[in-house]
């Protein structure tokens, strides 16, 4: 049994701190670039379609996960759907209470397979139910930057 199991405080054993000082610079990729530019410029969603597997990928993908073929069939899909499941978040990453609990929902889109996890707003947590109709609320055009945060949240239709 190590010393740390028998001492009162971690600092009773010699110790020091260090970090791994890296940050990531991520690209959206070939499919993602087109998806986010469409959101930024037009405030709408694009998807790619695998005609062989009958799957509409939203967010769009460059290739079909199932048959591995290249996808170049692009379609516009509506920004509405329904709540597949949801949670109400009360604490932040540091375990501090949020001033206002936030609703986080997995929204399945009507015109696509899969969907997005995003915030739900303009509704009280106790009023949310599975299957509830919702739509995306986009930020104003001059505030959009081509990121997932260009969607402010989903709200009930």
């Amino acid at each position, binding site marked *: 049994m190590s010393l740390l199991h028998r001492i009162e405080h971690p600092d009773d054993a010699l110790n*020091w701190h*260090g970090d*791994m*000082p*890296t*940050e*990531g*610079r*991520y*690209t*959206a*990729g*070939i*499919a*993602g*670039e087109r998806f986010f530019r469409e959101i930024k410029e037009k405030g709408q969603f694009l998807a790619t379609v695998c005609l062989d597997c009958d799957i509409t990928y939203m967010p769009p993908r*460059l*290739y079909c*996960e*199932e*048959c*591995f073929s*290249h996808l170049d069939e692009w379609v516009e899909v509506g920004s509405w759907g329904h709540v597949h499941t949801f949670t109400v978040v009360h604490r932040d990453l540091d375990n501090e209470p949020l001033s206002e609990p936030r609703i986080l929902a997995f929204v399945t889109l009507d015109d696509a397979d899969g969907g997005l996890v995003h915030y739900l707003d303009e509704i009280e947590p106790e009023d949310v139910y599975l299957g509830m109709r919702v739509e995306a609320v986009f930020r104003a055009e001059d505030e959009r930057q081509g990121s997932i945060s260009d969607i402010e949240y989903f709200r009930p239709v």
Partner: protein
Amino acid sequence: MIGDRVAVVGAGMTKFVRRAQETPKELAWEAAHLALRSCEMTIDDIDAIVIGTAPDAFDGVHMKSEYLSDGCGAWGKPVIRGYVGGGTGVFAAIQGWYHVASGLFDTVLVVCEEKMSSCRPHPQAAFLTIFDHTTERPLKPNLLWIFALEMNAYMNRYGLSKRDIATVSVKNKRNAADHPAAMLGDPDITVEDVLNSPVLAWPVQRLDVSPVTDGAVALVMSANHVARRVTDRPVWVEGVGWNLDTAYWTNRDLAYPVYVEEAARMAYDMAGISEPRKQIHIAEPYDPFDYKELHHLEGLMLFDRGEAPRAAADGVTQRDGDLPVCPSGGLLGVGNPIAAAGLMKVAEIFWQLRGEAGARQVPGNPKRGLAQAWGDLMQVGTVVVLGV
């Protein structure tokens, strides 16, 4: 030899670039897609997937192979990720081999990917924590320290000059000028260019080192009966070997890579090779630094200790020499997306033995070649011997 013979039947790679717009998944898919297409197979023909990728911190994605899986064709299939640092690329081919040799799978798609441009300010930072947190990190170490100390030890043991070693960088960057996927090919580079490049950690100068790179490579490996069906030119895996030295770099021989020798002996025994200098016709040793190609050629017993630099000076390792070494252009010329770079070496031997290497093709119809990588905490050797 365990089980049935295993063949490499297809290979593909992305262009190696400084900054890819593609996501890591998209890079992996492109290489995998090209490898499948090269042997007219589809993902449905593949029984299992091997993913090779180096530190998660490079792509900035923790549990990177899980993230990469769909780009590697892993949907609905048995999947494994092996990881031995820089040795991963060649080790992934070894894993592909034992998946098939075990009899468990007839076909395996091996995919290696690295996107190092994501890691800011420099991928070096991701390596800071490989050093011992008690005895080394307080010194603010840089990965180059290990290589600089090792290179100096190697030079001093055999009385080598910087010029003796710089010829490797020149050869590989010139070879890479003929590679359509290469990042740093340069037909006009000279030894003087290398010797005049900035000193990073003496004796390591900038042009002694391979670049930070994004890219992916994939292989299709199969059992004998599948190989016979899909190609009339299978390339057989004749031997595999891997070996680990002590994790303490202060407790190993920095001037001679014993772990490479042990890995090579394992592979040579399996391949029935008793005289590697005569029986290996072409070699792709791991060359993230120019001295490492020489170091590894000696560990592979292709040259006596301390003799590889003279052979290089005499032209033996040129593409048209007696033992062409890194005809691809290697990591110094094609680029070094860590795991993908190792698998690129296996793919290069595959292309060379099939006579498909285009402008890089070595003369003389080579029948047997070797790919080797090195990594982990700079103490692992991984070796694959291929033959036709």
